[in-house]
């Protein structure tokens, strides 16, 4: 065992002589830590960085089944040209942006409103119970969510169609209708996540000084007035922050959910980058175009997140890093 150096190593001695020797000795002294980190580093290299490296190679090659990545031919930007010239892929890109924008627009305000109501709720114990109830759907898989949505919207036996019929209206083929697909998709996502999304706002709300509310009350402000004068300004920075972050997902429209919910009848309005890459890229072996589309998606996502972070920092003084 190396001689334990008594305390204060956390601050390197200023102006230590022969810095290189010191650095080397520090590295040697920490050799156990590097050894410990090795499995984590191996994981990141194999399962995170290797795919990134491959993405940059495969996107510029014509990868064929049975041919190795390194044996297949370079094709320059051909895969990207295919991506922007294929009307199906262009439609997929448009669907992706439309669906994710819809998700942001529809999904943004309800959690904020719900969080404010939770915050203002006077009864303590009931509040805990209600909160636990609204969080639950977040923990169900998309498969389960689809099962539940099916129970409500299927044509022959669904709850909603039964209600429609009881009201004297006609049944609707929700799952096969291009007009209904997106409302169902986004509505069920809202149902799944509305409760869970309140958490970040509740954390922000809990930091608001209770004295501000008292003062507003004394000044004669009613509940709504207090929301606009105290509550909203108190969480504005978090609201902006969440908005900027969600914009970063503009090219991620929730492929896992769509893959479960869509079918041939609604393909034109439902198909997004993730589903297309899975279906055409992987299953129909268009590896290279699929990789190019994925790379494009990832790059745009990164740029938007970086921009969003910069904006969030500028306007709220708070970024992800």
């Amino acid at each position: 065992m190396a001689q334990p150096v008594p305390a204060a190593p956390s601050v390197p001695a200023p102006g230590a002589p022969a810095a290189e020797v010191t650095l080397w000795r520090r590295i040697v002294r920490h050799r156990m830590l590097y050894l410990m980190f090795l499995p984590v580093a191996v994981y990141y290299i194999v399962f995170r960085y290797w795919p990134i490296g491959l993405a940059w190679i495969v996107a510029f090659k014509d990868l064929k089944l049975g041919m190795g990545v390194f044996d297949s031919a370079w094709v320059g930007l051909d895969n990207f040209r295919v991506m922007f010239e294929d009307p199906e892929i262009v439609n997929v890109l448009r669907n992706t942006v439309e669906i994710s924008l819809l998700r942001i627009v529809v999904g943004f305000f309800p959690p904020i409103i719900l969080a404010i109501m939770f915050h203002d709720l006077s009864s303590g114990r009931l509040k805990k119970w209600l909160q636990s109830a609204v969080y639950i759907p977040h923990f169900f898989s998309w498969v389960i969510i689809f099962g539940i949505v099916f129970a409500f919207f299927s044509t022959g036996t669904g709850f909603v169609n039964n209600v429609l019929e009881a009201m004297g209206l006609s049944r609707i083929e929700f799952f096969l209708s291009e007009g209904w697909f997106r409302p169902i998709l986004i509505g069920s996502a809202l149902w799944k996540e509305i409760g869970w999304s309140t958490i970040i706002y509740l954390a922000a709300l809990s930091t608001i000084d209770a004295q501000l509310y008292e003062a507003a009350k004394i000044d004669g402000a009613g509940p709504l007035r207090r929301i606009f004068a105290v509550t909203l300004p108190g969480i504005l920075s978090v609201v902006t922050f969440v908005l900027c972050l969600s914009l970063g997902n503009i090219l991620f429209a929730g492929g896992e959910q769509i893959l479960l919910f869509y079918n041939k009848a609604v393909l034109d309005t439902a198909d997004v980058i993730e589903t297309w890459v899975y279906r055409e890229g992987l299953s129909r072996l268009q590896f290279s175009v699929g990789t190019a589309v994925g790379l494009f998606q990832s790059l745009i996502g990164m740029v938007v997140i970086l921009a969003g972070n910069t904006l969030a920092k500028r306007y709220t003084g708070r970024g992800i890093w």
Partner: protein
Amino acid sequence: MKSNSAGERAYQIVIHLIVLLVAASAVFPLLYVIGMSLTTKSEMIARDYFVIVPHAPTLEAYKRIMSSSVIWHSFVVSVLRSTVGPLLTLTLTAIGAYVLAQRTLPGRGIFLLFILATILFNGGLIPTYLVVKQTGLIDSFWSMILPIMVDSFGLLVIKIFIENLPDGLTESARIDGAGDWSMLWRIVLPLAAPALAAIGLFNLVAHWNSWFDALLYLNDKSMYPLQMVLKNMLTIDSVSGDSMNAMLKTSQSISTETLKMAAVVVGIIPVLCVYPFLQKHFAKGMYMGSVKG
């Protein structure tokens, strides 16, 4: 003053009502699904599939499901991946976070960047698939475990947690001659246990709910986890799901819908079982996550 307090009361009543409504809409679908899963075929037909509380509940659907070897098998696969996965994740997360929390470690900044960068950028579906293929994991149980062994966000949360432990504890252990392993094992892990438990539980639920990786990496259906089997039972494109027809073949007493809903309930039950524990931990975990930055 009087009118003000009346306004307060009206406001409280309104928000109570709305929040109750939202909570009810979160819970009602579950109750409805459970009700459907207990209904006999004759009652379904008699009441035109409009059953909320069955008059004569039957466990037939659950018996069918439990007698299906496909579902049992996939249940075991899911339990296995939801145990092995989180254990490995926690081990690597704890070790990685401990190392990154050492402020004196040379190269720490590079390591951190190395991990942060993966939050921003990934290779995408097909390159990841190719790597799983190249590492020989296709059709292996480990294809559902190894590619998602470390979650960068969880790692950073635990790292911050360890950094915020009081310096006195670690320093006195150092003076007593503790090496890194015993420091991690005896001092840091017990203190970080609640935070690690939260990460572990979330990871468990994520493993339990996961099916897409099975769809990608497994051709061999005998390895399918439960959610993947449920998916085949439930989705429109595979109405002719093989396992379901086998289960229904001999049954006159229950309908396809009942069986489907029972399958949904089976997929939910384990989540509801760990939910109270999740409850206890997630507020803390989320708070730690959101306070950062």
